[in-house]
């Protein structure tokens, strides 16, 4: 009898421990410890990165990130605030990088005189950055790092 009680108590303990382990597993980076069926407190808003320094692209095809704040920038049928600095003719005065020549190409591969309509909405691909600590881990390495690992003596 005593043994049976001890086994029962042990299994209950294990079940409880497993439960709490499960609870710990449901904790995802952004959600925190809030259970799935509840809404946690909103995260604090963070400042936008606001510099002139370009960020290195993580892979060659990556649309360059916007290093500055774009609060209140109007990009719609009437006008494009981004282009008032980044358009070819505006870069002399603004000293901003010109939008890539690939943006002048329409879907038939023809180069137009200016930005192609399909590339007009900048924030479809280009995004500003907020200054936050990454809430989830990320072990991404770029291709150069990856290749160097295959070299003799390279870091694995």
């Amino acid at each position, binding site marked *: 009898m005593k043994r049976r009680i001890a086994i029962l108590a042990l299994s209950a303990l294990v079940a409880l421990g497993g439960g709490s382990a499960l609870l710990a597993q449901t904790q995802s980076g952004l959600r925190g410890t809030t259970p799935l069926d509840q809404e946690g407190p909103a995260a604090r808003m963070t400042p936008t990165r*606001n510099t002139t320094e370009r960020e290195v692209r993580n892979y060659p095809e990556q649309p360059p990130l916007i290093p500055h704040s774009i*609060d209140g920038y*109007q990009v719609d049928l009437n006008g494009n605030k981004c282009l008032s600095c980044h358009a070819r003719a505006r870069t002399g005065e603004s000293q901003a990088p010109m939008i890539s020549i690939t943006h002048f190409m329409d879907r038939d591969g023809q180069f137009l005189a200016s930005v192609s309509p399909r590339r007009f909405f900048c924030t479809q691909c280009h995004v500003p950055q907020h200054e936050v600590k990454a809430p989830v881990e990320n072990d991404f390495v770029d291709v150069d790092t990856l290749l160097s690992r295959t070299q003799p003596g390279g870091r694995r």
Partner: protein
Amino acid sequence: MTASESAPAARGGVLSFARDLWDTLRRPSSVFALGVLVLGGFVAGVVFWGAFNTALEVTNTEKFCTSCHEMRENVFEELKTTIHFSNRSGVRATCPDCHVPHNWTDKIARKMQASKEVWGKIFGTIDTREKFLEHRLELALHEWARMKANDSLECRNCHSAESMDITKQSPRAADTHQRLLFTGQKTCIDCHKGIAHKLPDMRNVPGWQ
């Protein structure tokens, strides 16, 4: 035979009334004491000037501007989303801060121009959203031209170049202000269009495409 005798009766009546009035005004008063006239004139002047300025100030408030749906439902609604309405310190611009010159002479000149807006209100020039959008470019061009001509005076009533600490600005803003604003090559409105309201069709506006 004088001109008034040969003229039709009505015109003669007006002329003789004007002449009588002129004669009365020219002659010293035979009824009121000089003191009454001087003091009365002074008090009447104060009352008139006070009333004039009070009325002027009433038309210079956001409440007055947004009492018309044309302003309340279009431009005021748009202003609310911008930094000139909602920001960290709670200091905000009201309509007349940007749209009415603070200097008296310029203010009166602007107010006289604004009588055209009363005409527009009466005849419903922009009384629907569609009509407003149709006129938006024209209206915006007027405001840009005004600000360009007075070197963005209404901006500078609050944003003085002398008090601007560019070390507190983002590198992008600091560089541009140093290069173009402080050298007088550009004025505020040249770059800061559409900061308080939505933009019209910008296709032929310099610096835009």
